[in-house]
């Protein structure tokens, strides 16, 4: 943890809202990204991220030494689990609520890359999002933290409250399921990666 961050945390613990907002600015991209990929739609992700920061502000006085990012991500993950529970009690199809395009556009900012390449990347991103949504929440969270956010295994364990062995298992199973999901749709991975009937 950087010295600046430690100082900001200490000031936040003393009730300095500006210091806490500096931490928000540093982590809001990761927090919102986690919520968006966990929940699959912008508006619930926005609500969950905001809820997570409010909860973090109220709990920051109880934060002791450790990985602040992992601590914050754990709060965000809990906000996402809350939203998923809420969704189970009031079933709805988020992908049909008209937010799909908005989500994709948010995921893929405009760039100077060729149109065809951009379309291919958008398609892959959409498939990955569908594939992530098909995973059980625990596996989804572990894969997002590890492969999308680039957390170390230990950090994933801290952010999820699971043991290292459990984290390894969730990442392994999540990746395997995602690979199967992508392969079942065929066109996303190069042909040499597609399953064949060849044994060993």
């Amino acid at each position, binding site marked *: 943890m950087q010295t600046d961050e430690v100082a900001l945390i200490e000031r936040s613990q003393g009730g300095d809202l500006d210091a806490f907002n500096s931490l928000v600015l540093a982590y*809001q991209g990761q927090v919102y990204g986690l919520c968006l990929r966990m929940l699959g739609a912008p508006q619930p992700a926005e609500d969950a991220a*905001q809820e997570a920061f*409010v909860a973090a502000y109220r709990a920051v006085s109880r934060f002791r030494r450790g990985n602040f990012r992992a601590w914050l991500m754990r709060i965000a993950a809990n906000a996402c689990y809350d939203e998923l*529970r809420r969704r189970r009690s009031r079933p709805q199809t988020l992908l049909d609520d008209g937010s799909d395009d908005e989500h994709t556009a*948010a995921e893929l900012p405009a760039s100077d890359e060729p149109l065809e390449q951009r379309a291919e990347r958008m398609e892959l991103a959409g498939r990955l999002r569908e594939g992530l949504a098909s995973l059980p929440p625990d596996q989804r969270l572990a894969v997002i933290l590890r492969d999308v956010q680039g957390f170390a295994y230990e950090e994933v364990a801290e952010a999820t409250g699971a043991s290292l062995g459990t984290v390894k298992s969730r990442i392994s199973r999540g990746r395997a399921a995602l*690979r199967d999901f992508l392969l079942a749709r065929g066109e996303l991975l190069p042909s040499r990666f597609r399953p064949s009937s060849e044994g*060993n």
Partner: protein
Amino acid sequence: MMFWFNRHRRLRDQLSAYIDGELDASAVERLERHLAACGRCRQEMEQLRATVAALQGLPAVDLPRSFTLSPERAALRPPMPVTSPLAFGARIAAAGVAATLAVVLVVDLGDFGGNGVTEEATAPQMMRSNADENELGAASGAAATTAGEEAEIAADDEAETLMRDAETDQVEEPPPAEGGLAPTRTLPSPIPTVPPDATVVPLPRGEEPAPFPGGLTPEPEAGIIEALPAAQAGGDGGIDALTVVEIGLAAALAVLVAGSLFLTFVGRRR
């Protein structure tokens, strides 16, 4: 073959950690030896690598807005936990239902039909079963008594007969057997009853009086007397204490269910 397949599966499960460099040296050595010999595992490893690369290649998301907290928002009352109203109401209701059911079960099972409307309907059967029980008790007990006690039993028989006569319009009894008093009017029992004029058998040691002969002991009176108030209470429309308890429990259950519904409604409106 089975051993190889299990080993193959176990090593394949390590591919993900292998890609991330999370295996120790000995595990890496084992896996690499297997990979050198197993084309399927090599292919799976490449597929996993491609999947991880695709995930890592996802662009960062655009923020829809800033999430910095305003002083007003930071000062707001903490929001209620998402599931708390529903979960709290459901827990209260579930606990109430469980407790109520437990109490009702305990009361009902412990009582074995000692009162209430149900018992009113079954009072004659109870009387008969009491008589059966008495017969059983007498048949299994010793068969010694004194002449004075026999006279007392005869009086009890008379009383019991009168009681049963009062129920004859409710219970269809078999016709009395020859010379039989009360015992001959009981329902057929698999255990033979001792006739009222059975021979008095002396006590083996002559020390303690034994149960009464003729299938009767003092308990029949208690059984009949127990059954009668129940029938009378039902007939008079009175309510006994246990009924009051059951009504109270039902009311408590209703309150709990209504409370949980209210909490659910409040939770959804938030």
